[in-house]
Each structure stands twice: as structure tokens, then as C-alpha cells.
């Protein structure tokens, strides 16, 4: 029983991936728009997009770490 609850908790923690996904999606969309508007700046935009994505991804990673913590600490 307790294992099931732990699993549910871990699953909820991993839901933070939602935010990261939305964030990266918006960032990529905007980057595409920017490249369409200014194709000559695509190199810089790509760098910024990668950086932004890596930062936004961190949210999902925090969720993942918390989920792992829940599983390992509460086991």
C-alpha cells in the first residue's frame, strides 16, 4: 500500500515536466519566428534557444530529482 502511494507521489513530482515542455515549446516557437524574421541572426538565435531550453529543462530535472528522492528516501 505504502509503495503505491510513493509511486503516485513520484509520478506527481515528475509532472513538473509539463512546465518544462510548455516552456521549451514556446521558446522554440519564438525562435522559429525570429529566424523567419531575421534569417541572418539564426546562429545567435540557435545559441540562445539551446541555452533557454537547457534552463527550462532544469524544471523538469528538479521534478525528476524530487521523484527519485521520494522513491529512495521513503522506501
Amino acid at each position: 500500500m505504502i509503495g503505491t502511494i510513493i509511486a503516485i507521489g513520484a509520478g506527481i513530482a515528475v509532472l513538473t515536466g509539463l512546465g518544462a515542455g510548455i516552456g521549451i515549446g514556446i521558446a522554440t516557437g519564438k525562435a522559429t519566428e525570429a529566424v523567419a524574421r531575421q534569417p541572418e541572426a539564426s546562429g545567435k538565435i540557435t545559441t540562445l534557444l539551446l541555452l533557454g531550453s537547457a534552463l527550462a529543462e532544469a524544471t523538469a530535472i528538479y521534478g525528476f530529482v524530487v521523484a527519485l528522492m521520494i522513491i529512495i528516501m521513503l522506501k
Partner: protein
Amino acid sequence: MEQLAEELQEQLDCATVFYIGPYGIKESIVVTWIIMAFIALVCFLMTRKLEPDPTKVSKRQLIVETAVDGLRNLVHGIVGEEAKEYGPYLMAVVLYLGISNIIGLVGFKPPTKDLNVTAGLALMSIILIQYAGIHKKGVKGWLHSFIEPVGIMLPFNLLELVIKPVSLCMRLFGNVLGAFVIMELIKAILPVGLPIPFSMYFDIFDGLIQAYVFIFLTGLYIKEAVE
């Protein structure tokens, strides 16, 4: 399934290699020593007998010059002209992180998969950030920076002192760990062929990006501190 979980658990744990007295030295430390020796050796071999005359440089020198120039541009682009003196530290860190994130490819356990390593790096980063602030503004100016822009921000600024290194540490650790777990799961599904493209992304691309992100954020905080 049970077996996979066990194996994963085992892989995730950082083994203690040997003991100095009562203190256990973990695998990540040993791998760090190997990386340090590797970096020092490569640097030593690459920078022997450098020729000042630009018309007579060897190929080896050209490579090392290009690499150092690239690193300097990378770091100076982040910290700017005012905080240039912190550049060499960031370069050393990015070298270490870049190598340790992709060292899994040659069979070692990435040291960044150990929370102690990322925590140590984050701790050094926050100390360096505060040192940069003190060095630039003096103790008074540094203390004053905690109640900027208004006094009510004090708790948040103090909280930031904790959040910054924790976020740095967890981001790096989580990324490497997550990549590692996903790679293990993929390997459990199909050990041949399938992991190659994923390894390209998770081990090389993501590893290098995270190394860059780490020094990018550290550099950004330093720049913020000296402004």
C-alpha cells in the same frame, strides 16, 4: 522488473573505492583525479615549445591556440570585460565538466553523477560570486547589495544565496543522472544499436550543454555581483 530496479539502484550509487582512516573516498573523486591528470598532461604536452613567431607555428600550437582562443571568447562573452579575472576559473571548470560529462563514453562513471561533486562546484561558485561582489564593492557595498532595490527584499536576497547554488548543483546533477537513467532504461530495452543516437544526445550534447550552462550561470551571477 525487480531485477532492473535493483541494477539501477546499484548503478546510481557511488561506490566507495578506498578508505583513508575512517573516511571513505568515493569513485567520483578517483575519476576526478584521472580527469585532472589527463587535463594536466594534455595541457603540458600541447604547450611545450610554443613559437612566438606567427609565421612559424606548428599544427599542435595552432590547435592549442584556437582552443584557448575559443574558450576565452566563450567565457569573456559571459562575464564581460569587468570580471575578466574570473575567466580562468570558469575555463578550468568548463574543461572539467565537459570532460567529466562525456567520460561515460569511455567506461568511467561520470563524477557529476555524484551529488558531492556538483554540490562542491556549486559551493565554490557561490563563494566566488560573493567574493567577486566583496572585491568589487567592499564589505559595506556587498552588505548593502542585499537590501537592494528596497529593504523588504532582504529575505529574498538571503534566500537567493541558498537557491543559487542549490539550483546550480541540482540542475547539473539531475541532468547527468536523468540522462544516465534514461540511457540505462534504453539499454535494458535493446542493448545493441538503439542506444547510439540517444547516447549522442544524452551523453555528448546534453553533457556539453550542461557544462556550458553551469559556467554560464556562474558567470552571469558574477557579472551581476560586480555591476
